[in-house]
């Protein structure tokens, strides 16, 4: 990798799959654990590819692929455990899968059959956020709540917890993200800011948002920032573990910049050829997060071809389930969406629902998209 700006990141596994030493960080887990990460990554990628394909077939309105960012997501989420709480952005499919969100349920938002229906509390996972950066403040507030609940700085480390929040390189320009840094620093909140620098915010290269490495932003707010090779699942796990540990012990926030690359389009409505070269994409393909973990595990003997074959079979099962599950997703009815606008729906809202139902009942046919709507939908759909 000739990119000079990445010389200062933490790497524990080279693109070729060789483990290397770092003066400050080491991966403490076993090869078995690494095999678990590989499995997480492979399944996430397969899921992601299926979803992209489903969008192409018109079954989803939109899909934001996580392709290429699997190590950043899998490495970091594998450093969490309850009572940690995770605040994703909208591309953390590998994170959500790892935390037990059902793969088919994850599609509902993008198929347009639901908002974001996960029962997050059960899994320590907040719902996706689509307004860039907003969730960073939620994470800080949540962490302040954990402080008040006595989950920080206990002698028994297992009693401690922290929040971790995901966001992109582009998000770092939002006021909210910077305010999140301020509140976190001010209250020494137990939170880890996990920024996946995938080099682009839609078409905009990182240089437009920051001329210096992003991890250095933290120093101006008075807490540590660190850059990690985001395609190295071991390094990501090690660095995130360290940052979460600091947070749980009461040492406050950390900013992690996971240096990675969005190998796919921003979303399925995007055309990346307009703003980046094939050369660049090829260069990053050589740093694929999955192949290096696989190379390492094969070399170490922790896995073999049979293991990979069975993982492939598992992936295929997942893919089938996702394909079948997607088209079988229940079609919602508008009246359901009057329910959770407020906790105690007022008369005025119930009247609107009843008016709607009465009006609908006046038709013999069920409400279907009309031709005109379907038409514009296919042309303008879902840019994001």
């Amino acid at each position: 990798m000739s990119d000079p700006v990445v010389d200062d990141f933490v790497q524990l596994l080279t693109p070729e799959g060789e483990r290397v030493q770092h003066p400050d960080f080491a991966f403490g887990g076993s090869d078995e654990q690494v095999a678990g990460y590989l499995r997480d990554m492979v399944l996430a990628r397969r899921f992601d590819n299926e979803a992209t394909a489903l969008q192409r077939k018109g079954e989803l309105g939109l899909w934001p692929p996580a392709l290429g960012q699997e190590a950043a997501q899998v490495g970091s989420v594998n450093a969490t455990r309850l009572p940690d709480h995770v605040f994703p952005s909208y591309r953390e499919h590998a994170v959500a899968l790892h935390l037990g969100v059902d793969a088919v349920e994850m599609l509902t938002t993008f198929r347009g059959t639901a908002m974001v229906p996960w029962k997050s509390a059960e899994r320590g996972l907040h719902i996706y956020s689509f307004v860039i950066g907003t969730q960073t403040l939620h994470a800080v507030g949540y962490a302040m709540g954990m402080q008040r609940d006595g989950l920080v700085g206990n002698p028994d480390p297992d009693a401690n917890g922290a929040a971790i929040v995901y966001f992109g390189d582009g998000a770092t320009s939002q006021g909210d993200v910077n305010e999140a840094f301020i509140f976190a620093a001010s209250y020494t909140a137990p939170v880890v800011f996990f920024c996946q620098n995938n080099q682009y915010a839609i078409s905009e290269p990182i240089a437009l948002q920051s001329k210096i490495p992003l991890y250095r932003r933290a120093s101006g707010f008075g807490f540590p920032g660190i850059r990690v090779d985001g395609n190295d699942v071991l390094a990501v796990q090690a660095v995130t573990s360290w940052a979460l540990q600091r947070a749980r012990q009461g040492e406050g926030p950390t900013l992690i910049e996971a240096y990675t690359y969005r190998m796919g389009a921003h979303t399925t409505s995007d055309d990346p050829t307009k703003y980046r070269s094939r050369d660049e994409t090829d260069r990053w393909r050589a740093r694929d997060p999955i192949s290096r973990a696989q190379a390492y595990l094969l070399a170490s003997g922790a896995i073999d071809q049979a293991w990979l074959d069975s993982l492939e079979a598992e992936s295929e099962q997942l893919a089938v389930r996702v394909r079948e599950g997607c088209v079988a997703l229940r079609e919602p009815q508008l009246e359901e969406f009057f329910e959770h606008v407020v906790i105690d729906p007022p008369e005025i809202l119930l009247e609107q629902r009843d008016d709607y139902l009465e009006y609908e009942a006046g038709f013999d046919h069920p409400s279907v998209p009309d031709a005109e709507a379907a038409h514009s939908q296919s042309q303008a759909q879902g840019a994001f």
Partner: protein
Amino acid sequence: MPTMTLAKALNAGLRRALEADPKVLLAGEDIGKLGGVFRITEHLQRDFGPDRVIDSPLAESGILGTAIGLGLRGYRPVVEIQFDGFVYPAFDQIISQLSRLHFRSHGALTVPLVVRIPYGGGIGAIEHHSESPEAYFAHTPGLKVVTCSNPLDAYWMIQQAIASDNPVIFFEPKRRYHEKGEVDTEAEPMPLYQSRVVKPGDDLTLITYGPMVRTCVEAALAAGDEGRDIEVVDLRSLAPLDMATVVESVQKTGRAVVVHEAALTLGMGAEIAARLQQECFYALQAPVLRVTGYDIPYPPSRVETAYLPDLDRVLDAVDRSMAY
């Protein structure tokens, strides 16, 4: 029954809420040591500690966003926006997050958060300190918006808002902070989202809320001297609107005037007029009139008494309606 100012009633209500539920937290700029620029939170940090009465960094979006996070963690945050004109930096967190996290999660998430906003003019302040932004919030699905007009309501409504599992925008009529009234701290309060007929009458209905309630009651009394029997409705809740109470009144009187400080165009009066002309089409003997701030930014304080609806402007509208 104790007599206290509206400001003290809020302070007492907040204190009782803090006592009643350890999950209740207050946050905002200068609310701790200083007790807030209006002293609404006076002594609360002293008595409940800095972990429950939190001085926040100077960033409204941060205050709202972190309060949402605290709410997601099971707390019941009550945040203070120092002045009406400073709520806009927090607008995105309120509109795109607070108002719809419950909806976005299909009911799985609740954010029991109260946003306290001192609002309105009449205190001789400089710009951005006399705004009436309530319509922005009342237009937003998912938010409840309430406002008190007297110490009794202040005391109870703030506690009810805090007890509600829904986000509530709580507007405080800052020019009435120092007005006194009796506060029954024991009796059962009326429901939070219900309007109140504060003065009954048969000839015309004045529909108002917050700081203008006193103005309208005074106008109604003055009109009484001229033999006009005016009914005054204190809306109390702006979202949802308690249209049943309003419609019942207008069905009876046949005439309605809506009064508020906010600008005319798309102010609360627009919605009320729109609903009344529909629900009381045959009962209305005159159009619903609106007495409001003009469609200009809040002007300098030396002309604010001319800008704000006052007794005379309300009576003028009453005359116009009666003469219709």
